[in-house]
């Protein structure tokens, strides 16, 4: 846990970036990028999430490795669920049902 108090300017800066990214993601969705629309939308969402985690949730300023480990492993577990499910759904059309 961070003891030290962050400057409020930093919070406002992050807030502005988040607002801009929100408008950008809504706007970019109206442009046809083919399959990259989804990629861009998820990249922007992930950057926003990362900003919130690192700054608003103080993870960047904590000396505690454990917090980071908890975050990384829960995301890892989510990916296990998604990817191993896809190993079924992604290969069903190959036949041999």
């Amino acid at each position, binding site marked *: 846990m961070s003891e030290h108090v962050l400057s409020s300017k930093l919070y406002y800066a992050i807030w502005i970036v988040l607002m801009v990214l929100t408008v950008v993601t809504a706007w970019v969705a109206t442009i046809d990028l083919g399959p990259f629309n989804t990629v861009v939308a998820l990249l922007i969402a992930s950057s*926003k999430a990362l900003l919130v985690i690192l700054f*608003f949730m103080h993870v960047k300023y904590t000396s505690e490795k454990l917090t980071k480990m908890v975050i990384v492993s*829960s995301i890892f577990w989510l990916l296990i669920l998604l990817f191993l499910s896809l190993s079924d759904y992604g290969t069903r059309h190959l036949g041999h049902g």
Partner: protein
Amino acid sequence: MSNSPIAVEQHGPELRHHFSTVEQQRDSASLGMWLFLATEIMFFGGMFCAYLIYRLNYYNEFAAGSRSLNLKWGTINTIVLICSSLTVALSVRAAQMGKRKLVVILLILTLIFGLAFLGIKGIEWYDKYKEHHIPGASFNVDDLVREYPQIHIDQSHEQIYFSLYFAMTGLHALHMIIGVGIFSYLLFHAWKGRYTTTYYTPVEIGGLYWHFVDIVWIYLFPLLYLIDRKPLG
């Protein structure tokens, strides 16, 4: 990791009997909240998994359903939640510095943003109710079929999109309601002046929860509203 907490007697009123130090107590509370959030990720994760599978299978219906959502309200709600996250982060900061009044003001602002989010969500749901887009007996998407003749829409597949839409936003809204409850509690105690520069753990871990709910929405917004907003060719 392996540095065991050393017993130092330093009793404050808020230190519970089974902890040795205030730090130990605070670190425990914070770790507890992080672990709870990990649990929450998997809780939403089950739905994200269902979403992923059906979006791959029924892309057309997901695209049409996404178009039928109100992008304006969705974007405004995202902005409202981001503002609330800012006020939460600032309120934790104010609590760290012991500025009681500021904490109270920021918590009130947070609550206002939270309630505004829920209100807007309510408006959106009510619109969906009027459009017969709520899954169940009266579910009907003839309007979408008429509106988007370019997209092939299967009514029952469309219902799966809206089922997931309501399940995911509903679960998120439930978390918002719980968040509003938590923040009302924090507001009450902040008002009473219970939080000091050495003891503000509840504000801090309540804030973690709020930010998490914000992050879920940060993903729900593109996944539900922005599937396909390209001009129809």
